[in-house]
């Protein structure tokens, strides 16, 4: 018999308990958050639960970044919890970062009690209004009866179709009210039905074009990673024998050490990737969006004609910047799987015949000629540490098997160019929004997901200072992240643009008054190292990743060449084949 006078018996829960039970139902393992007035009821319910681990960050921005990285590394929906007002606004950069890269997140934010909304209450901000342009969807829960169903919808929307962040704003009074807990098993929304299966007529049309191509090119993006389509992509690419390039977001989608991989494309892409993009006759774009950093000047891109096949789960990504000939809307894994099946079935004879083998051989000869220019070479005899060298050694020491997070700038581009990612979900960076400061919280999220994995945060002395407070979180949760700081005393990418396009006027890009990072790391209870000579690079990395420091966070401060630039570079407004190469300066 339930005691009606005691609402906590039976299935009656507080709103806060409902939130916890929803997260349990979703099998959430980590919640990244920071308490505050409007979420105190929820934190009180967290106190008494053991289903998930709460990771206390030092700034809400880092909570969202860490949840975002957890999602990127695992494919699960990341969860962050923040309070109202400043807690909510601090989370916005993290939410926008996740939105631009289509990362599945559920961000729970506290709100002032419902009757106080609109009264300019203490720590009140219109979270739904502020986040509207940078979420896939958001909700304000106005009735406790809707709480569980709303959270269910949030997880469903975040993780399906083209993924993205979903905010659920929960007024404080709702978390204190009582209601029966019941979690819906499925979600039915008449207004939201992502298309999963590609149109089979279009898929066949695309395959015919691909088999008839003389200079084919595969160009794949973050969609391959998000859609767990790497296996199907590798199978398709090897079967066809075509060259393949990955975008910054797509690295690891195809093994970088494979001969068919021609490197990353775009503003800092390889010569062979960019030239092949420009010169191909059939371009197969998969889970990529022809971003401005990828194709450069669109008019220049269209100065050569080519047939474009575009596969994407989001119809609005197709023909947004570039008009395509064969659009295929569908989940990339499903579409590529269907293509592979067709190549083993209906199209087997056609594919085995290799109608354009001679042309494709000639195409490869051309690509090898571009590749032989070795566009990523740099001065290996320098007395100063070259940043590229640090990345190459990092790849060697970690046997190419680490999770690499990065911040934003030159170091990010060098990591993308020199760390050869062979597996998906190993390269964690802010591609779309380009958020400085993500590197360290990203590393936390990854290390929590994979406690035994090698996790390195490649960063610069400017970026790392944007979320440096998280060194404390790393200490509390024993996260043995290895920070690889390429310290050139400049905001490197800003300095590079100022050198190229602003007559060497280094306006406000010099990083003065840097802290002693070794002492700073030690102050937080970590191991600090300062590396000044090229000959010390490898020993330092070996020590940091070695057995003695396996359990420790290590902060490596590499003093690198102040004048080093990222090459190749497609200057803003130029075309893909108008790259500046290192030797040309």
């Amino acid at each position, binding site marked *: 018999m339930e005691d009606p006078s005691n609402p906590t018996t039976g299935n009656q829960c507080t709103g806060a308990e409902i939130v916890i039970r929803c997260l349990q139902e979703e099998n959430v393992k980590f919640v990244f958050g920071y308490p505050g007035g409007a979420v105190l009821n929820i934190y009180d319910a967290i106190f008494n639960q053991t289903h998930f681990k709460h990771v206390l960050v030092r700034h809400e921005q880092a909570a969202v970044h860490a949840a975002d990285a957890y999602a990127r590394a695992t494919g699960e929906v990341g969860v962050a919890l923040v309070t109202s007002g400043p807690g909510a606004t601090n989370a916005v950069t993290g939410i926008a970062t996740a939105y631009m890269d289509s990362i599945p997140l559920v961000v729970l934010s506290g709100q002032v009690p419902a009757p106080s909304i609109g009264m300019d209450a203490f720590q009140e901000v219109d979270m739904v*209004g502020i986040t509207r342009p940078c979420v896939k969807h958001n909700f304000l829960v106005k009735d406790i009866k809707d709480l569980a169903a709303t959270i269910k919808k949030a997880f469903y929307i975040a993780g399906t179709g083209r993924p993205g962040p979903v905010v659920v704003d929960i007024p404080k009074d709702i978390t204190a009210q009582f209601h029966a807990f019941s979690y819906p098993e499925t979600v039915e*929304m008449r207004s939201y039905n992502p298309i999963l299966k590609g149109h089979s007529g279009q898929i066949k049309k695309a395959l015919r074009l691909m088999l008839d191509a003389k200079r084919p090119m595969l160009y794949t993006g973050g969609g391959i990673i998000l859609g767990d389509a790497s296996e199907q992509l590798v199978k398709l690419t090897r079967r066809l024998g075509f060259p393949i390039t990955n975008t910054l977001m797509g690295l690891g989608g195809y093994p970088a050490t494979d001969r068919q991989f021609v490197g990353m494309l775009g503003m800092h892409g390889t010569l062979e990737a960019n030239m092949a993009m420009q010169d191909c006759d059939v371009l197969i774009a998969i889970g990529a969006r022809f971003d401005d950093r990828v194709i450069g000047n669109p008019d220049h891109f269209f100065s050569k004609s080519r047939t474009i096949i575009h596969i994407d789960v*989001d119809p609005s990504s197709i023909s947004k910047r570039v008009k395509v000939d064969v659009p295929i809307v569908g989940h990339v894994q499903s579409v590529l799987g269907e293509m592979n099946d067709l190549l083993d079935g209906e199209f087997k004879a056609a594919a085995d015949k290799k109608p354009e083998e001679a042309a494709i051989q000639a195409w490869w000869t051309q690509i090898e000629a571009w590749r032989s220019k070795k566009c990523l070479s740099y001065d290996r005899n320098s007395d100063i540490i070259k940043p590229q060298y640090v990345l190459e050694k990092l790849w060697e020491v970690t046997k190419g098997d680490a999770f690499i997070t990065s911040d934003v700038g030159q170091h990010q581009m060098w990591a993308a160019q020199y760390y050869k990612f062979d597996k998906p979900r190993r390269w964690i960076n802010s591609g779309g929004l380009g958020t400085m400061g993500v590197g360290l919280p990203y590393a936390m999220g990854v290390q929590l997901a994979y406690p035994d994995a090698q996790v390195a945060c490649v960063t610069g002395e400017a970026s790392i200072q944007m979320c440096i407070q998280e060194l404390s979180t790393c200490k509390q949760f024993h996260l043995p992240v290895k920070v690889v700081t390429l310290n050139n005393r400049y905001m490197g990418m800003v300095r590079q643009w100022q050198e190229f396009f602003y007559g060497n006027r280094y306006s406000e890009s010099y990083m003065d008054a840097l802290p002693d990072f070794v002492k700073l790391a030690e102050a937080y209870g970590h191991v600090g190292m300062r590396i000044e000579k090229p000959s010390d690079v490898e020993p330092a990395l070996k020590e940091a990743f070695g057995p003695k420091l396996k359990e420790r966070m290590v902060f490596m401060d590499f003093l690198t060449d102040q004048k080093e630039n990222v090459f190749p570079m497609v200057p803003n407004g130029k075309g893909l084949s108008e790259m500046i190469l290192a030797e040309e300066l």
Partner: protein
Amino acid sequence: MKHIISLLMENEAGALSRVAGLFSARAYNIESLTVAPTEDPTLSRMTIVTSGSDEVIEQIIKQLNKLVDVVKVLDLNDGRYIERELMLVKVKATGPFREEMKRMCDIFRGRIIDVADGSYTIELTGTGSKLDAFLEALDKTAILETVRTGASGIGRGDRILKI
């Protein structure tokens, strides 16, 4: 080119601002926007008048479809449609204007719905261009106030936007 886009969306708080926000965030033109609940109170029907190249209109339709609250989108310009807008105009009705305004109102098949000593209020429905034509036909100094609803549109014959 001018397009009239009709859509059905969940009748929820904030749904309108998602559409309005989309247009401003992506720098799409918006000439007018009307919205009201339908016979099914869980649904709102919206008519948006916008303009842009074919590519821009295609993107607008896709982006609208992407909004989680939007149930269905139809570009009325893809077929035959009817467009109507309501306008209320308050005009001077003194001296020679009193007779003139009555006559103009009749020509345009409007109705005088309020009469005061110095003014008439005229109700006029029609396409946007008919309403424009009416205003152009009036003596500018006679127009005291105008209010327009923005266009509502519906497909002709069997073209039905329903879930």
